[in-house]
């Protein structure tokens, strides 16, 4: 890229099976805000394994959409993605490059940053433009979220991965127009063998309601009680690390530092004491409800509503009351 002339904001839109991950729409919304300070263009980069309606990204705020279509993008191979994203980055020449901090985004972005010879800030929760220098301030939590570090990048592009659900999605404005630019994929094959062997139906980071269980559960089949409640509310079951380690439920359900970071509308923690390891993963839920026998459990410190009681009594009663309301 021609760093001297770099300008504009490029947002990577991660495509999976024909859908763009929502974090891209959130980043496009934030990009609109940054654009006002910078007076620049906003572009989106899509590497898609199938034909997409690229105008959706324009409706969400992109002035330009750069796309490369290639079946190979159905396989998450970071090096191949990097080469193609590099091609788009060179074509648009942005001063700011943003990617969602999804698992894949966090694995892909570091390769791209080195290839672009620039810095990278991980897992940001906010972005601002510094009034004096017009540089991007990247804000990320550190030490279990106790502090927020404000980071600037020397050199270009200024690059960051941003957490999901930090910004609201860009509104859809179908009157917007923009340019769609198609590029050819880079030559060569993916040199890593890739085969999908299992796909999980639901993504806990997308759940609006999470009913989570912890050590208060006596045996794996007791998760059924929580599943009942989750089913009633159209939610998902989550878990603390100890019951995942004990094999009660798969790691895909784990909430916390070594599991998923979630931001549901309601999080009901049942029999979870509230170790820091768990709390960092769920403390940003809109509403937190905690059910625990131990009145001194730290989970009550982060809860909006706490019930000191036995989950084996409280949850069935809650299910019954919900049925009455429906």
């Amino acid at each position, binding site marked *: 890229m021609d760093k001297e002339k770099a300008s504009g904001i490029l947002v990577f839109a991660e495509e999976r099976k024909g859908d763009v991950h929502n974090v891209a729409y959130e980043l496009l919304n934030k990009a609109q805000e940054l654009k006002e300070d910078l007076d620049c263009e906003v572009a989106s980069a899509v590497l898609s394994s199938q034909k997409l309606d690229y105008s959706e990204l324009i409706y969400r705020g992109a002035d330009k959409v750069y796309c490369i279509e290639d079946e190979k993008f159905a396989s998450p191979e970071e090096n191949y993605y990097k080469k193609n994203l590099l091609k788009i980055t060179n074509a648009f020449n942005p001063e700011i490059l943003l990617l969602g901090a999804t698992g894949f985004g966090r*694995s892909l972005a570091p390769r791209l940053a080195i290839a672009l010879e620039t810095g990278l800030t991980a897992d940001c929760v906010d972005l601002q433009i510094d009034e004096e220098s017009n540089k991007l301030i990247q804000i990320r939590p550190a030490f279990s979220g106790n502090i927020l570090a404000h*980071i*600037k990048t020397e050199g270009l592009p200024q690059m960051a991965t941003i957490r999901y659900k930090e910004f609201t999605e860009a509104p859809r404005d179908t009157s917007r127009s923009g340019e769609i630019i198609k590029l050819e994929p880079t030559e060569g094959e993916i040199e890593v063998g890739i085969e999908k062997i299992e796909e999980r139906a639901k993504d806990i980071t997308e759940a609006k309601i999470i009913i989570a269980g912890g050590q208060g559960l006596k045996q794996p089949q007791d998760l059924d009680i929580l599943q009942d409640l989750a089913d009633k509310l159209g939610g998902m079951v989550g878990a603390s690390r100890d019951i995942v380690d004990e094999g009660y439920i798969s790691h895909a359900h784990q909430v916390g*530092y070594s599991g998923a970071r979630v931001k549901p509308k309601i999080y009901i923690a049942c029999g979870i004491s509230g170790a820091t390891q768990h709390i960092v993963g769920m403390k940003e839920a809109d509403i937190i409800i905690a059910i625990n026998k131990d009145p001194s459990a730290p989970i009550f410190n982060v809860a909006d509503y706490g019930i000191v009681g036995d989950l084996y009594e409280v949850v069935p009663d809650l299910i019954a009351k919900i049925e009455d309301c429906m």
Partner: protein
Amino acid sequence: MLDIIVLVKQVPDVKKVKFDRERGVIDRKSAPNELNPFDLNALEAAVQIKEELGEDAAKITALSMGPDMAEDSLKEALARGADEAILLSAREFAGSDTWATSLVLSTAIKKLADYDLILAGEKTVDGDTGQVGPQIAEFLDIFHAAYVSEIKKLDNDNHNIQVISELWQSSFLKTLDFPCLLTVTKEINDPRLPSIKDKVQARKAEITKWDYSALSDYIAAEEIGIKGSPTRIKNIEVAPAIEREGEVWRDGYEKANEKICELLQEKQLLGGE
């Protein structure tokens, strides 16, 4: 001989470390240091590979960049099964961000020259970026697989490894030729504790130390440390605490459950799909 490099880092015990909210700094003296918990899984994976291949068929080198006191963590790596440990420690390396750290580590790996498999934890508990592994892979121009939850098969004859990589809500079976880099999750194994005998032996062991002069033929001092780091921390603020209602029912849950039902109704989260 399969040459395995395990990247390790000494970190403060984040469960114990105290945080000075007023000054907005970490009191690093408030907690003991330990080997980054995720790195234990990377080490254990290396040891299991070696056990499978045979004592003389693999060599494990633990590699770390850090201050002199990081020797302790490398000794622990030796106690846990590493054959050799190298500490990159120099004033010139201090203050490196992930870019500069990856540059220093990848340069040391290039200098080592013989490497087939590089293993790293998915992230460190202090920096929490997870960037250094993939960045090293890019500097070395080798492939990597992230969030590896299982090593399926190591094929020494064909010089490749099959792993499960957890991405996109799915498990992908990836086959990577050597040399390659893997970042592993906690799911991959349960790290064993070192025996007393191994600990005692490791305590006496020599850690190879490389300072900047070991790498100065490859990298300029301006490319590393604070000077070489493209990202800079400009300011630190104390994260605002999230306000919570904090209503607790201690005697009986019926009223509480009624309140939750009201709340669900209010938020339109009940029924009427």
